[in-house]
């Protein structure tokens, strides 16, 4: 009898397990039925985005406006801070969102993976699409240059795969109040920069600090444009042979090596995700003069204590020669469509809508500025100062190292930017650095 009871219990346990399995199955079937039914009349656009400082609400508002503009469409939104983990599992089993708003340069590299795997839908035709609810075409509205970058056209074939979204100029941030107090001029050339560096050193202030070495990307890209112009920059981004041994590259390496010597000594110790704000604090405390950063730093350090008379100042990189070009790198986010998206046509329509005045207005309310002509005139406050940098003669640099097929163990960002910590601490020499860059660049070129 006892045995029978035990057996019965065991059987019940097995059934429970089986039941677990089947309930999942039936869930799946329900889901499948749901989408099946909805594709009949109302179409569902699956939209996934990284939740950033701009918040979720702007997307919800824009989606609602889109649903109103285009009938019979429902936007199904997934907006999470860990969006890669949320959409990752279903993508592995072949179910993709229709539109993804996630920029390159994130730690999990989801967007890069799609670029490297050739897994994106071409979006060149979006540029010639008419914006829903308006007369004009998308391409006419976007500020020239934004869709000619190595980020938006990753395969160097003139075709656009990623559309530019919110942009923000980057450059050097400083305490304008301190400069006024001391009667210093903001340097316009690197030579003036070094002179200022010595002056500041005499007063116990370091010339330079950086939050983490990752912030050198925009700095380095702008610098490459200054030393060799856009053409040279594009060559460098494409890992052209011998480019790192050229005179122009040498000049850029010299400037960064010299800057490393002028960097506040404690910076590498705090140059990580946990403590980078301590490095930013150096500027607020008048312990360092300049740091490379983006416009978001103002909010990021909004509640931080600051020296008396502190006022944010923002400038493009100093020119290499007197009267030479000065550049400010433009950081922008991207929106794109996976190659296996079910509703690619609808996704394109949605992207086109994002460039409408209506949508731009909603985004701008939260400080998210799109690369739409005339948009920067509508800004106010600090943002007006930041976005006007290009009106004051600075040229815009855009693009990044071209994505190649993944090369195991080779990461160009780590090699180029990560090593700057070692230049500051003295663990690596300029020569070690350039050799490592050349090696990584060679490996990536052959993977192109």
């Amino acid at each position: 009898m006892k045995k029978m009871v035990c057996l019965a219990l065991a059987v019940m346990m097995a059934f429970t397990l089986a039941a677990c399995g089947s309930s999942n199955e039936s869930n799946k079937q329900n889901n499948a039925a749901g989408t099946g039914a909805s594709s009949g009349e109302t179409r569902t656009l699956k939209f996934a985005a990284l939740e950033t400082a701009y918040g979720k609400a702007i997307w919800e508002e824009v989606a609602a406006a889109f649903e109103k503009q285009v009938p019979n469409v429902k936007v199904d939104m997934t907006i999470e801070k860990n969006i890669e983990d949320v959409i990752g599992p279903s993508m592995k089993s072949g179910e993709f969102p229709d539109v993804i708003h996630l920029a390159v340069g994130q730690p999990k590299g989801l967007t890069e993976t799609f670029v490297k795997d050739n897994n994106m839908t071409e979006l060149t035709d979006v540029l010639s699409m008419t914006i829903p609810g308006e007369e004009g075409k998308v391409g006419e509205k976007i500020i020239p240059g934004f869709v000619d970058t190595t980020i938006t056209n990753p395969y160097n074939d003139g075709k656009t795969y990623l559309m530019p979204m919110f942009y923000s100029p980057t450059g050097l941030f400083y305490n304008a109040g301190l400069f006024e107090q001391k009667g210093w001029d903001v340097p316009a050339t690197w030579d003036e920069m070094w002179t200022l560096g010595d002056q500041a050193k005499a007063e116990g202030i370091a010339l330079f600090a950086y939050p983490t070495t990752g912030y050198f990307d925009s700095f380095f890209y702008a610098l490459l444009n200054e030393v060799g112009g856009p053409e040279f920059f594009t060559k460098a981004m494409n890992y052209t042979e011998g480019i790192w041994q050229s005179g122009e590259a040498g000049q850029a390496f010299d400037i960064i090596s010299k800057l490393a010597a002028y960097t506040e000594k404690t910076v590498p110790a705090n140059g990580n995700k946990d403590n980078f704000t301590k490095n930013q604090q150096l500027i607020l405390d008048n312990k360092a003069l300049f740091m490379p950063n983006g416009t978001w730093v103002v909010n990021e350090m909004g509640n931080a204590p600051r020296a008396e008379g502190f006022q944010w100042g923002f400038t493009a990189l100093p020119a290499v020669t007197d009267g030479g070009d000065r550049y400010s790198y433009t950081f922008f986010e991207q929106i794109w469509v996976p190659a296996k998206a079910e509703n690619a046509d609808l996704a394109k329509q949605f992207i086109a809508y994002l460039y409408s005045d209506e949508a731009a207005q909603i985004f701008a309310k939260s400080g998210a500025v799109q690369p739409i002509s005339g948009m920067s005139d509508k800004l106010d406050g600090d943002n007006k100062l930041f976005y006007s940098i290009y009106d004051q003669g600075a040229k815009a640099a855009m693009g990044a190292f071209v994505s190649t097929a993944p090369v195991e163990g080779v990461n160009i960002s780590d090699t180029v930017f990560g090593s700057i910590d070692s230049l500051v601490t003295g663990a690596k020499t300029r020569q070690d650095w350039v050799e490592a860059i050349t090696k990584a660049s060679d490996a990536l070129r052959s993977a192109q």
Partner: protein
Amino acid sequence: MPSTSGRSRFIFFCLAPAVVLFVVFLFIPSIDVFRMSLYKWGGYTDTKTFVGLNNFSKLFQSEKFYQVFQNSILLIVVVTIITFALALLFAALLSRGKLKGTNGYRVVFYIPNILSVVVISAIFSAIYDPSNGLLNSILQLFRVIDEPVLWLGDQKIVIYSLAGAMIWQAVGYYMVMYMASMANIPESLYESANLEGASPAHQFFTITIPLIWTNIRTTLTFFIISTINMSFLFVTAMTSGGPDGATEVFLSYMYKEAYTNSSYGYGMAIGVVVFLFSFALAGILNAVTKRDHLEY
């Protein structure tokens, strides 16, 4: 006879659910890691190419991987030895030494184990801070150093700074484990040792250690596995692998390659090496520390 077959069937049905769960949730995923290490794969989509052992051959030619290997082994050795020594010492002091407030100490030592790694890393960031951190302030107060030491910024020191945080976190846990087994040792053994005139140190090495040896052996395996896992958490929270990769360990490097560098297959190859390495290390330690079981 029929009763035997009934019994077997009964055992089979009893074990089946556990075995099924084990296979589905543990065995298959582990095998999957081995399988995926043979592919070139980005990790997010279903585009993969079979590349055989290519990932492994690249791995063994990578300087970076050897640096990571070195860092991990250094942490395993340093953290294990020091934690182990301190935990044993404190456990012996608290259970044998006639201290007041033993329970209070036990709680205090155990607290770091309850804290999350993020909290610990925040505490240690404050301790290690170059300009106004606790450690530099104390050292400067006693004029041990003139210039502030960059505990998390100097490539030669940073790995030991990490080890310090890891030891602080682990000591309490192992101490409590050793105290538990020390409590089982009959008091009469110590009494007779006292009568014979054995010093406390002598008693510790000849009575305490041999009698808790089984426990020490078990915890050694824990040490290795937990150091590999915990070092990833500490690195992620405290240094992000920096400065310039100086604190990159097995799992942080694996994560960087698998995700940031879009080389999931290569990441899994690192996973396989780590798996085999920790398995082998645990096996070796187990064999080396084998002693005759002592009864009391």
